[in-house]
């Protein structure tokens, strides 16, 4: 019975690179979120834009921190 070895969904050698890129993109979007909050007034703020920016930032930060944990040896 030729069994297929199970490998990780993403090649392990990419983990550090992915961690750095995803975290930096996430932090850029977080920065843009806070800049938007700071420069807009109560009247000009639009909730959908805030939520989408927040969602996108949290997606990148979440996956980036997962890859950061994996790259540093904490195999969750």
């Amino acid at each position, binding site marked *: 019975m030729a069994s297929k070895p199970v490998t990780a969904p993403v090649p392990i050698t990419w983990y550090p690179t992915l961690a750095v890129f995803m975290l930096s993109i996430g932090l850029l979007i977080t920065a843009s979120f806070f800049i938007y909050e700071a420069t807009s007034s109560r009247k000009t703020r639009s909730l959908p834009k805030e939520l989408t920016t927040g969602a996108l930032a949290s997606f990148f930060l*979440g996956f980036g921190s*997962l890859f950061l944990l994996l790259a540093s040896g904490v*195999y969750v």
Partner: protein
Amino acid sequence: MEASLRAHRPAALLIFAFLSLIAVSSSAAQEIQILNAERRIDLSSQVAIVFLTLKVENTGKAAASDVILAFPPTEADHLAEVKAQAASGKKRKKTYAHLIVEPTDVPDAPNGAKGFRVALLNPLSPGETSTIEVLYMLTHSMEPFPAEISQSDPQLVYYRDSAYILSPYRIKQQTTFIKTPSTNVQSFSRVEPTNRASMELKYGPYEDLPAYSYAPVLVHFENNNPFAVVEELVREVEISHWGNLQITEHYTLAHGGAKLKGVFSRVEYQSRPSASGVSSFKNLLARLPPRVHSVYYRDEIGNISSSRLRTDSRKSELEIEPRYPLFGGWKSTFIIGYGLPLEDFLFESTDGKRYLNFTFGCPLSGTVVDKLTVKVVLPEGSKDPTAIIPFPVEEHMETKYSYLDVVGRPVLVLEKKNVVPEHNIPFQVYYSFNPIFMLAEPLMLVSTVFFLFASCVAYLHIDISIRKG
């Protein structure tokens, strides 16, 4: 014994004829006789390795499908492994076929002897002979005597066995050879004919002995080989589908030989190593799989730096040196941990289930483990774990809460007592896992971060100031 048998022989013949006329079914005791038995006992290490060659003949009317081996109850408690194979062919072209051995009840055995049934490949027809080879190992069967020695004494042990091979069948001719690790044999019991030639004792040949004959013998000899006993070992194998297998092993190591009495002089130990502490040991070798990474060796105090790791493409060897050399009665506890790449050990079978192929048993070579617990921690969301192991173990399930866990990881716990290095063979754990569950971990992180952003948005939108309405 012989005189009474001769007197009862005519009566026995009549009874045998009567029974054969009735044609009793084969569930009655099969009529087997052992033509020639040779037993080689190797006492070089702390485990007594016994190699038994039996030439079996079927003297009954019905075909015999198995051969029963008997062990005295004290020996049966210390049996670590019983293996059998059938030899066929001539001297140079022998082929060996593995036979299944199972413990069995021997109801009419005297003094509570325990039995093992060896299933023959092809049933032995009446009048036919066959040769089977049995290998069995006994742990803790060498008793240190004197029980306490000083630092400069050699270690002497007792080995108790029988000059006659214990068997439920009549043995026509038998010989027992005992091999000692050195030429220093203080004393040995004589059951004539007995001979001794440097490192080998020969008991026999003995002719025509009835079933269950037993002649206790005692050999008192010097054995300075390390009596490294791991009293308890807990091995945890954590599977992470992100690409790593993390093994953590908790050891309680003890020296199982003669206890040290008096003081331990480090000066004497280091200045005269050939005369001082000859039965002590100071390092152990652990054989690990290749491509191992992040190996650590520590105990409750902290990291133990006296270790060497040598890796190559086929194996890795970790040589560990506990903080102090181990003398009789001394113990040491430590933890060894390492990581392994997942693709070497986790596979997907044809029916969609995944299985882990890993070695059972202690990686430290030359040690006997009194109680071994292997815990296989499966990723969160795994279902239906089953284990396929070549020897009997006790199984039960637990749950472990580890990194980013919500419901916990299922843990399959396998326990076995009396483990020797022969048990270092692969076993498999099958389980089913839906790959979508792997997303649970990153999504948990994403949702935590999003909760922070959402609370930020909420704070900025909510007006909590008090104003004139």
